[in-house]
């Protein structure tokens, strides 16, 4: 065991994992986090807390994780290299481990121009792969990036992202290999809508044997409306939204029901895909649909490990 978190134990036991996402509020209300935590409590193994997602300032991921932890939920702390240099990144990781937050997902972060402070300076002192490597060195060698010693244990289960839908497509599996080599223990992917493209990527992943070295959780984002489907198709970089899904949403009498049906169909296909060890449900602002989706996917009850 690297950190012995519930997520790690479930994945290590070979069971299909379910994680969900809880975006912190644009404010200091702990209640917002707690409410999302209660909704997600029984339907997932761990809850990701986003880190200034889409470059919009929100309550810190570390605080959000601690609030979930106090409720008895297991958090995954997301951490982006856009907003912090190597001193701040490592210091937050030490703080997270001290608070018993054992799952940390390392990301680049959306460019600051997309958020609510587009005039900010992007930090990008190190990149996400270097952060993964830094966490591994902190955990396994008890050393900081500088080579100086860390006192005490550093149990972390290291996560990274993968986007099979970004370009160049052929390079994406090499990038995953690089993240694995750097020390990633689990991967949460960008939302899957184009299942056949994802299947092709997974095939390349298996050819390189990467599915045996890292736990891949396929990302899904339930769609609430035709407008959301169109927006994701036209305006979100790195999301592949097939026209067929947009059309289904446009023709649906009840968009929310249709959106849930689409996600269930996608999860069904992901469950059967060799090398996929779980799903990561990012129901941005629609967390109350998650228990229903997990239930109808046949993924309840969640295992006790």
């Amino acid at each position, binding site marked *: 065991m690297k950190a012995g978190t519930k997520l790690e134990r479930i994945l290590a036991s070979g069971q299909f994992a379910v994680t969900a996402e809880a975006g912190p509020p644009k404010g200091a209300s702990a209640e917002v986090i707690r409410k999302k935590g209660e909704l997600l409590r029984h339907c997932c193994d761990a809850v990701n807390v986003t880190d200034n997602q889409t470059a919009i300032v929100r309550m810190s991921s570390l605080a959000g994780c601690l609030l979930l932890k106090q409720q008895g939920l297991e958090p995954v702390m997301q951490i982006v290299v*856009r907003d912090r240099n190597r001193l701040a990144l490592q210091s937050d990781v030490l703080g997270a481990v001290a608070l018993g937050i054992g799952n940390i997902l390392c990301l*680049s*972060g959306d460019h600051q121009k997309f958020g609510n402070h587009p005039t900010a300076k992007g930090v990008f002192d190190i990149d*996400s*792969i270097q952060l993964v490597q830094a966490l591994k060195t902190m955990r396994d060698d008890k050393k900081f*990036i500088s080579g100086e010693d860390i006192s005490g244990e550093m149990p972390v289960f290291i996560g990274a992202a993968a*986007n099979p839908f*970004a370009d160049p497509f052929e*390079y994406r599996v*090499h990038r995953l290999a690089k993240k694995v080599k750097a020390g990633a223990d689990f991967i949460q992917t960008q939302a899957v809508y184009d299942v056949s493209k994802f299947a092709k990527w997974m095939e390349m992943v298996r050819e390189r044997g990467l599915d045996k070295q890292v736990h891949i959780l396929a990302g899904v984002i339930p769609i609430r409306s035709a407008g959301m489907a169109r927006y994701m198709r036209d305006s979100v970089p790195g999301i592949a939204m097939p026209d067929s899904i947009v059309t289904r949403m446009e023709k649906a009498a009840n968009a929310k029901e249709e959106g849930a049906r689409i996600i269930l169909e996608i999860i069904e296909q992901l469950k059967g895909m060799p090398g996929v060890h779980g799903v990561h449900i990012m129901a941005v602002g629609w967390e109350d649909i998650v228990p229903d989706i997990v239930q109808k996917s046949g993924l309840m009850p969640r295992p006790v490990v």
Partner: protein
Amino acid sequence: MIITKQKSLEEIRKMLAGYGKILILGCGTCATVCFAGGEREVAILASSLRMAEKINGKKKTFFEHTVKRQCDWEFLDEIAEKVKAADVVLSLSCGVGVQAIAERFPNSRVLPGIDTCFLGLTAEPGIWSERCDACGHCLVHETGGICPIARCAKGLFNGPCGGSVAGKCEISPDVPCAWQLIIDHLAALGQLDKLEVIQPPKDWRTSHSGGPRKIVSPVREESGEK
């Protein structure tokens, strides 16, 4: 080359409020090449300002001069009298030139008439594009001669982020993804294996993060001078 861009007439006029005799000082090197502060731009700016002030009824006199390089002391001696005679110097040089004027003529006022944008090249006539971040330690031999620090919006060292789509950067469809360029170039050279290596965190001490930089030539160091 240092790429510069002239400030708006509005911003320049705001800075010039309260000054009567103004020396518009061009620079014959980089700022000339990117049409921001050469002899021609000095003349155009001077006539625009004269016209604007005439409409406004303000009495201002504009003098025009262009030196070979504002960033070299040797080219500044020739303008000492002109600088002295003016109330203010409107420098059409990069930030280096503006500061050289301020340093050489400490009793004179100097204003920046252009913005210093980046280190780049003329991609096409009339189009300038960034190429270098002056980080102080070049690594482009690892990346097919293309700098990811200057040309990737996130300055990533180990490949493209999830926002690279159809060869473009997530920040704009007008910005090429530097990593797509790197991958294409290395593929053409048969050197894609270079990308398997994990580039370690950069030592930023050679960049501006290490504080203002200075280089002493080896010859000078040997002679014991500092």
